[in-house]
Structure formats: structure tokens, C-alpha cells
């Protein structure tokens, strides 16, 4: 029963603090935790990055492999995003195949990267209909202290932004991979911001305590389109609670402002 009582005490405390605009870790409702990004942390990967949001710690790696395109897009490379909630990251994580939470996380990250058209898959084709580059993006959660979606999105993004694509020579039906690299063809950069709803308040970048007692969360990704106009490119509500229409639109407005703030922290040279 304790696991029901502690959250309800915690929830009351979080709601009371929020009345005066404060949070248990000292942040305001719209503050992000300290974000740290390190890139090229794994030399054997074609791209890699670790991201910390406070104590939340995530690593993402990119590997390129030659494979077959999907039949309906014979001239395009493939991107695949997976997430592992490895057991060292939380007492609640168990070994075994990805559960619905890991699958949801990977698909939300994937949607942000895909809908922003970050990766120019048309430039990843080697032999149309036969051989294309597959970009495998693998996310490992290393320490779960809340807001895995934003940390994982940012880690995947930074791993892709700093990844290098092997050069390849096509001779007939053969592809020879050369010992040289080119930058990965990238376009618009998506930034994901998650807010938790607790009571009638919205909390940017929720901590684990806040996630445990939240009604629901909303994740919104923003990217610049071809005209450099900022657009929403992906969205996901998670959790069992409800949102009013006013809360939904307010959350999207806050997320937009926060995404601009997070965008400034990207590795130099990226917008």
C-alpha cells in the first residue's frame, strides 16, 4: 500500500509548491534542468552523443549499414530508431525485450526526427530498389530521473548531427565501402519539449517525482520548415489523465518558447 500513499503525499506537496510557482528541485514551472551534451563519445559508432537533463542520463549511437529499401520507397535510405530501458538505469527496469514504454519512446523520438525531415533519405540511396544506407539510431537510457523523451530526442539528434557517413563506390551491383567519410545529409532539426500536467499546472521538463504523480504529459517537437518558419512537427500525449483545450494550446505555446531555448544549446554550427 505504501506505493499508493507516498505518491499522494508527494502529489499534494508538488501541487502546493506549484501554487507559488515553485518546484521541489528549486526550478520555476518553465525551467529546464541543466542540459549537458557530449558528442563523439563512442568512436566505433558513426555518430554518438550523451545527454544529461539534470541527473537523467541517456546515450544514443548511430550505425550505418547497407540494406534493402522499403518496396514503396526504392530510392530512399531507411532510418530506424530503437530504445532500450537497460536495467542499470532504474530499479523499475527489467531485462527483456522493449516494453510498451520503450516502444512508445522510440516511436515518439522517431516521429520528431522523421517528420522534421532531418535526415535526407533520398541521398542515402546506393542502388535504387536494391541497396540503400540504413541509419540505425539506438537509444540507451542510462539513468532514469524523468523526461526520457526530451533527453532521448536530443541525444539521437546530436548523434545524427555529428555522425559521418562512409563513402561508397558502386560498381554494377556491388557496393564497395571506402575508408573515407562524408557528413550525413541533414535538413531541419527537431527539438522536443515535454510538459507534465499535475492538477491544473504545467511543468516543463518533468522530474521523476513529477512524472510519478502527473495526470498526463504532452510532448511537442518543433522544427524549421523549408522557409525557415518554425512549425510543430510531432506531438504525443502520454498518461491516463486528460487535458482541457485551453491547457493543450497553452502547453504548445510554452513548448515553442522552450524549444527555442534548447535549440541554442546544440553543438556549434547547427541551428
Amino acid at each position, binding site marked *: 500500500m505504501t506505493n499508493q500513499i507516498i505518491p499522494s503525499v508527494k502529489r499534494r506537496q508538488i501541487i502546493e509548491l506549484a501554487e507559488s510557482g515553485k518546484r521541489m528541485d528549486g526550478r520555476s514551472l518553465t525551467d529546464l534542468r541543466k542540459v549537458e551534451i557530449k558528442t563523439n563519445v563512442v568512436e566505433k559508432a558513426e555518430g554518438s552523443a550523451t545527454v544529461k537533463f539534470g541527473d537523467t542520463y541517456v546515450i544514443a549511437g548511430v550505425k550505418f549499414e547497407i540494406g534493402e529499401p522499403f518496396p514503396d520507397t526504392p530510392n530512399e535510405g531507411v532510418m530506424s530508431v530503437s530504445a532500450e530501458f537497460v536495467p542499470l538505469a532504474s530499479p523499475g527496469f527489467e531485462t527483456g525485450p522493449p516494453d*510498451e514504454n520503450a516502444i*512508445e519512446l522510440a516511436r515518439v523520438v522517431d516521429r520528431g526526427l522523421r517528420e522534421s525531415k532531418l535526415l535526407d533519405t533520398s541521398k542515402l540511396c546506393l542502388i535504387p530498389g536494391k541497396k540503400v544506407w540504413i541509419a540505425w539510431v539506438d537509444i540507451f537510457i542510462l539513468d532514469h530521473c524523468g523526461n526520457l523523451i526530451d533527453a532521448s530526442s536530443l541525444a539521437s539528434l546530436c548523434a545524427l548531427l555529428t555522425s559521418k557517413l562512409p563513402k561508397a563506390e558502386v560498381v554494377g551491383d556491388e557496393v564497395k565501402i571506402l575508408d573515407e567519410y562524408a557528413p550525413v545529409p541533414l535538413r531541419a532539426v527537431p527539438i522536443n519539449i515535454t510538459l507534465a500536467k499535475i492538477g491544473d499546472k504545467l511543468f516543463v521538463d518533468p522530474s521523476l517525482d513529477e512524472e510519478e504523480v502527473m495526470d498526463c504529459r504532452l510532448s511537442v517537437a518543433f522544427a524549421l520548415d523549408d522557409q525557415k518558419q518554425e512549425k510543430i*512537427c510531432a506531438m504525443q500525449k502520454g498518461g491516463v489523465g486528460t487535458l*482541457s483545450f485551453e491547457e493543450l494550446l497553452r502547453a504548445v505555446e510554452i513548448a515553442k518558447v522552450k524549444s527555442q531555448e534548447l535549440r541554442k544549446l546544440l553543438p556549434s554550427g547547427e541551428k
Partner: protein
Amino acid sequence: MDKKLITEDGRRLDGRRFDELRPIKFQIGVLKNADGSAYVEWGRTKILVGVFGPRESHPKHLAMPDRCLIRARYHMAPFSVEERKSPAPSRREIELSKVIREALEPAIFVELFPRTTIDIFAEVLQADGSTRCAAISTAALALADAGIPMRDLVSSVAVAKVDGNLVLDVMDIEDKLGDSDMPLAMMPSKNLITLIQMDGLLTNEEFAKSVELAKKGCMEVYAKQKEALDSHFRIASKEEV
């Protein structure tokens, strides 16, 4: 992406206006074994939903002392789509099962049935877009048919942007070739959103308009759901007499 999704006279490929739903036909109480069931033909999308419970939780350690557990499974038949789909649950189906559960659970008085489980099974027999929305709206009727106390029905519909226009109730081709897809579910008489997802590029203004259009669509679905409940239980009560 050269195929036109809007005809010259401003209609969609199936002749609908931008803000028009497809024909929707709900049937309630279609299965004998399930505690509650409903079937929908939503344009060419066909979905069957069965509800079991509240029943004893299996495995037992899943039981919660203060509420019932809600489980949902969204599953597509291998023959429901153009190219045969493997019957094993895909990552997409696992994610959709989760969001469908989260869309329905707010409507259920879970605290009335401690230590039990309610299972919601949605089988997509034919998919032509908006299957999660149709599954949610139909599941709400199956839950009602099972006699499970609810705060409200849950009604759901998707809005897409195709060729620059926002259109209501997205069919498959509009989802595949359109610029955005946004499923939304709500408890209509509570005016609360229980599911929102979006992909594709939209400005904040376009998003706000999409949400408005989805809300209008949900209210229309809600009317059809109530009509289905009304006619089903009216017939049922006559039979009993």
C-alpha cells in the same frame, strides 16, 4: 506526392467536403462471449471490439488494491491491409494499444472495481485510415455495453492537412500522402482531451484550427454513438418485455 487529394471542385477523393465525416455505422452487442462488444463500419474501416470484465486479474500480482487494471490491445488482421501484415504485434500496434488504453481509461470509474481487470480487445478487420480513432469510439460503446460505469463516452476523430487544407476524418490515402495527421479523442460532455497525437508540419495557428475541427468531428461522432446506444437498448428492453 504528385497525386491530387482535393479535386478541382473542392471535394475530397471520396466526394466529401473538408469538414465531413465518412458514413459511420455502429452496432452494439454483436458478440456472445464478450461481456460487451461493438462493431463499426467507418467508411471502409471495419473494427470489432470486445470487452471482458471487470474480472479477476491474471496474473494475480497485477491486481491493484484500490482500483481495477485496464488493458487494451489494438490488433490488425493480416488481411486488413493491402499487403499482408504479419499477425505478430508490431511496434506500431504496441504503441497504439497504449495510447488507446490511455484514451479510454479516464472515462472509466476504475476505483469501483478494486483487484480486477477490464480487457479491451480491438480487432481491425479492414483498415482505411483513422483506425485508432474508430477503435476508441467503438471501444467506448463496448464498455458501455458491458455495463461498466463511465464518466462519459469517448469520441475520437483525426484531422489531416492535405494539399494545404485541413480535412476531417482522415482516410488512408490522405494519411499516407497528406502533410499532417492528428488523431484526437475526447470526453465530449466533459470537454476534456484524452488522446492527442500529431505528425507532419503545422504552424501553431494551423494546429489550433485542426484541434477545433477535430472537436467538431468528435461531437458528431458522439451523436452517432448515443444514437447507437439508444437504438440498441431500446430494442433490447422491448425484447425483455
